[in-house]
């Protein structure tokens, strides 16, 4: 049996108080918790550290607000790659594979899991240990690759998708952009607040529906 891999994160680094385990059980984090160990479904611990560092360069935690680190984006990506999306269950994957014009999009044979494994090899497994400047240069050199484009897309998804998918921990992404989450009704508000910010307190699907959500990625694993 494969040894289970964990990503160890200082509890204070995650933005919110809620994190979801593999079984979708919310863990409440306390400041005194010290380090927490998040079980990984796809990445090895080293891969997860490298990807987490790359996500942090794409969507950094800085003066403009928290970023990929606080939102737990790498956990989101790990869950996505472990599920049917990572194995290309929704993409047409029959050959022959022929390179074509840009208007036809990605025509490759490699699924997202393959693309990440090859991408991590290009980043280097010790990517997280490089100085910031070198990390940025490395990513700039990969900007045109399919791997980088996936990583950038997934970073945004992990920042702003419902926390049941593993990222947007504590709704930190939604708080950043003022998105209130999936609210049932704006009947009383749609024609009000013109030109002024209307920012209801964000809530995730689980809080709205008062029951645990089940991401599609989990359904056919």
């Amino acid at each position, binding site marked *: 049996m494969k040894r289970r891999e964990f990503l160890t994160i200082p509890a204070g680094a995650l933005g919110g108080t809620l994190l979801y385990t593999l079984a979708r059980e919310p863990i409440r984090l306390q400041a005194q918790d010290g380090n927490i160990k998040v079980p990984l479904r796809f990445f090895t611990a080293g891969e997860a550290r490298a990807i987490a560092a790359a996500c942090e360069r794409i969507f950094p935690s*800085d003066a*403009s607000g928290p970023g990929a680190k606080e939102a737990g984006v790498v956990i989101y990506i790990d869950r996505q790659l472990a599920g049917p999306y990572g194995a290309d269950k929704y993409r047409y994957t029959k050959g022959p594979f022929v390179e074509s014009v840009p208007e036809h999009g990605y*025509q490759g044979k490699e699924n997202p899991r393959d693309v990440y494994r090859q991408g991590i090899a290009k980043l280097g497994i010790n990517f997280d240990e490089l100085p910031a400047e070198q990390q940025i240069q490395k990513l700039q050199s990969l900007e045109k690759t399919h791997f980088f484009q996936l990583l950038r897309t997934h970073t945004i*998804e992990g920042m702003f998708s419902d926390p049941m998918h593993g990222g947007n921990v504590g709704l930190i992404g939604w708080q950043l952009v003022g998105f209130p989450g999936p609210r049932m009704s704006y*009947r009383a508000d749609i*024609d009000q*607040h013109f*030109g002024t910010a*209307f920012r209801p307190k964000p809530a995730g699907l689980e809080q709205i*529906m008062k029951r645990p959500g089940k991401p599609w990625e989990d359904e056919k694993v």
Partner: protein
Amino acid sequence: MTTLKPIDVAIIGGGWTGLAMAKELVTRTSVNVLAIERGMPRTTADYAMDMDELDYAIRLRMMQNLAEETITHRHSLRDSAVPVRQYGSFHPGTGVGGSGEHWTGLCFRFLPDVFTLRTHMTEKHGAAHLPADLAVRDWGVTYEELEPQYWYTEQMMGVSGKAGNLRGKLIDGGNIFESPRSNEYPTPPLKYSYTSHLFEEASRKLGYHPYPTPAANLSENFTNPDGISRPGCAYCGHCSRFGCMIGAKAQPTNTLLPLLRKHKSFQLRTGSWVRRIVHENGRATGVQFTDANGEEFFQPAETVILASFTLNNVRLLYLSKIGTPYNPAEQKGSLGRNLTHQIQNAWRIFFDKPLNAFMGAGALGTRFSDFDGGNGLSGEDGPLRFGMVNCGSGGELPIASFGALPPGAAKANWGAEWKAASLKWSDRVSAVGIVAEHLPYRQNYMDLDPTYTDKFGDPLLRFTLDWTEHENKQRDFAYDLAAKIAPVMGAKIDTARPQRSRYNTTQYQSTHIQGGAPMGASPENSVVNPYLQHWDVPNLWVVGASSFPQSGSGNPTLTSLAVTYRAANAMIEKYLKHPGKLV
């Protein structure tokens, strides 16, 4: 293969048109009807947990799974096609309700001259001034003939809007350029969002005639003539690509299915993939399908109605070897011709105020039709046909809307500078969009791909499709209008003019693929007659937007249902009494 007990009518597809045919048949006649849907069952209750942008709007869980079947595309006859491996310029749905579940709810009638476009354009411009490769034609049915079916469809859905042309009387505040209506809309317009107001004021100032977009998202509680009650829209902003959890957006599962469920003469079989229409001596004998367990069945039927999405309607006719494939070189044959994809373009506009754009409803918005069809166009150097200009409030969701920046706001599309700029501009971005008629051309068509196959090993459908000079002219014209409106709305527009472009399978445009099995007055160049009965196989009816010889400017659902209801009337009033060719 197991042969099942014969049925009177077998319907392929459980979406809008399939269930509409079924409902007319089981409520007005004594025939037994079986609808065969390849996707899974669905009800309104299934959408309770669906306000999840990732699963629904990004991973597109309501759409056909491309791993099982896709299309291939090439730009011209000289190219070889490659598969559309991921979505995509359009999003065909699957499951009960089909694309009618995840649609946005925009409800337009086509203009009268769209139905007689060959005659109209020849008279207006002269045959010599039309592009040589233009394949526009008359439908064989007129707007006046379809008006009662348009009204019937609007009542079924409870479409909200404001009439601008009531039996020829023009009404300010409605669309005065619309096709004449016999009745006011069943429900009043939706409430206006902030940008709806801004667009309305700006376009009025510029001398245009704005009106609220007609919507299948109910503006108030409504009971339709069938006795089906649905609540008014909650403006939650989860319409397009989602199913409506309260049933305010008209969908087959909340309008037609509840009624059909009450009839013993109706059965719905899901997870069953129809692979051939079986026929001999010019008569369909039934359909062959494979169920979710991989077991094969033959379902004998007296009458077969092909009512799936445009793509599958055309593909099944090809796979079943029914009709004459179109040959673009010789201009012969009819199956696969007149492929069109409604023109949709939008340009981002940037405000210095928050818009609260997460609130919205699929079709909520304002628009004007001053240049719809051939209105106000001489065709001298600009486009011959155009469409509508709009600003919508469908509900902005955070993944898709993050990172929309005015030009020059950040050097890269990642990193600290990009992040700060994206946060600064978040909820300050809207769009001015256009929808316009996509004219048919001789070289744009569908056939079977010689190389790529679906999960069963059957050939995929192949598109040969590219933009022509006319579509580029439409885009230029649209950009100029958008650039004129944006500053009057108090916004800045992206200053980059649209580039000459080729058809792009990776950028979403609209799910409005039309044609391929066009209707017409003569079997020479059409697949079905104006009642949507197949010319060669009179007990086979091919309904929906595959029958459109060309696209209108507006979204096609309402027209797709109007022609389908007309087919249902012909089938019930004439064909079932005296089966045979109606034309």
